[in-house]
């Protein structure tokens, strides 16, 4: 799939912008604050209905307006040109349409796919556990509608169980459901992480020039690694819940389940969160996203949009070039850079110079 054109109204520092895109590489260059990152964000919001940077839609509206709208034409081999729009008005609900027909967020995930790499990604390694869970959820849901549905229901169950604990209503039926849905979430997460494990280490090895990156899934429900039959996980979940039943009553919140899952990274056998550098975190996150991109290509049988925000800051010319080469003949690519686009990017690409929320030149 590729994004043929976009029309943006009142999104961050863009009041109004309309442009066509090239089916291969599109480079946005301009100074910091010019809006090149916001343009990537708008493309991501158009594909997945949410921002990767902010949970709140009100924040991404241009400060002088009370709504934003992003429209785009997406071309897919199977469906041809489709028109997609995402709009949000202050105090209202988000409205998504595909070919003018209202669409649910879940259906966006089913129809489109995008992977974004940006400087804040170092938080996947060094930030709080919720960042790691969100990373897993956003990308797993792009190839498993089943996962997305289960996750939505799991969150409802969790909210009901927590309310029961707070209001001293018997939480047992919700605990049983929590186990049922929680187990399938954990199984899907194990499969997902297994699928990207080797590729992630491979990319890290390549980009860092020989270092080792590993990660390990640490669910809040303890079970031995390798022992991953559905029944084993269910039993482990049950006994872990039983052990925590009294404590949950005291603290009035759910202590066990995939909403407390963790993912630990290590670089050259040292815990990355404690011992890694900012640069290593970013390279680790980049490797993860590359692995995810290739997983999604395989699972979805289409090329997700790949959005790369300021990745050249970390990489020397040689590594940047070899990284870009690995995307040759793949899907559509959007990348930002503060400096003039490097020579090797110029083949098969279109460059957009951006200043103060406007495209001032296309080369």
């Amino acid at each position, binding site marked *: 799939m590729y994004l043929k054109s976009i029309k943006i109204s009142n999104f961050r520092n863009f009041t109004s912008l309309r442009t066509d895109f090239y089916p291969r590489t599109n480079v946005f260059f301009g100074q910091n604050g010019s809006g090149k990152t916001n343009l990537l964000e708008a493309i991501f919001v158009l594909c997945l209905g949410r921002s990767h940077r902010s949970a709140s839609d009100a924040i991404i509206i241009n400060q002088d307006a009370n709504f934003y709208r992003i429209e785009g034409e997406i071309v897919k081999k199977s469906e041809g040109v489709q028109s997609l729009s995402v709009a949000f008005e202050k105090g209202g609900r988000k409205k998504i349409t595909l070919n003018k027909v209202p669409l649910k967020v879940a259906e966006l995930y089913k129809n489109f796919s995008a992977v974004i790499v940006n400087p804040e990604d170092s938080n996947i390694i060094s930030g709080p556990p919720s960042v790691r869970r969100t990373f897993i959820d956003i990308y797993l849901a792009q190839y498993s509608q089943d996962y997305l549905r289960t996750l939505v*229901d799991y969150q409802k*169950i969790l909210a*009901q169980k927590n309310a029961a604990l707070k209001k001293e*209503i*018997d939480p047992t039926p*919700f605990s049983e*459901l929590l186990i049922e849905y929680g187990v399938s979430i954990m199984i899907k997460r194990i499969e997902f992480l297994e699928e990207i494990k080797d590729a992630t280490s491979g990319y890290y090895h390549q980009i860092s020039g020989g270092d080792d990156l590993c990660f390990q899934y640490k669910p809040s429900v303890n079970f031995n690694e390798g022992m991953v039959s559905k029944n084993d996980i269910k039993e482990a979940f049950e006994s872990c819940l039983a052990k925590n039943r009294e404590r949950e009553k005291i603290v009035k919140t759910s202590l066990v389940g995939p909403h407390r899952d963790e993912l630990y990274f290590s670089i050259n056998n040292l815990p990355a969160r404690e011992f890694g550098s900012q640069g290593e975190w970013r390279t680790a996150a980049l490797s993860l996203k590359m692995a995810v991109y290739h997983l999604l290509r395989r699972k979805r049988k289409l090329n997700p949009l790949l959005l790369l925000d300021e990745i050249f800051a970390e990489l020397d010319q040689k590594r940047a070039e070899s990284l870009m080469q690995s995307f040759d003949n793949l899907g559509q690519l959007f990348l930002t850079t503060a400096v003039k686009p490097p020579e090797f990017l110029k083949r098969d690409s279109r460059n957009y110079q951006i200043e103060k929320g406007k495209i001032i030149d296309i080369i």
Partner: protein
Amino acid sequence: MFKSAGSVERLVNQLARLPGIGRNTRLAFHILKLSKEEAFELADAIHEVKEKVGFCSVCNNISETDPCQTCSDPSRQQDIICVVEDSSDAAAIDKAEGFKGLFHVLDGRLSPLDGIGPDDLKIKSLLERIKNNNISEIIIATNPNVEGEATAIYLSRLLKPMGVKVTRIARGLPVGSDLEYADAVTLTRALEGRQDI
């Protein structure tokens, strides 16, 4: 938004109390546009329903008589009860004609977020019916969503030790849709395919 007519505002406020409507001025204007006869007919119907219709003291379903028609119909199977959340669910299942037993309306579903626990549902009267009336099977037909599932789990844990057969309406129903909106064929098939839980 208009500010003029206080009586229109009153109508909007009253309509907003109904589920799934909210402050819908379009609906209020629609009523305004009705002829006097049509509008009074609507008001009259609301008035009459509140005068005549109450709840069956046996199954808790809405009814003009007590006990209700279903509970006093000897041709229905007397030892099998289908448990539903609301009267509208009972009506939907009855219309499907796949079911010839009795009903029990819980008057809600477990939802701690709304402050609704087991004590807020008509469960005690269900237990009485099972104990006193030789009930052999309970079909739990709560909605196929999180709250409906939790209610079904709660009931089956409670009822099984009483020696009654407990079945759950099969999950052939569209996920996330409520019983009321499922078509008759789906409902009939779901009831035929009920499973032991």
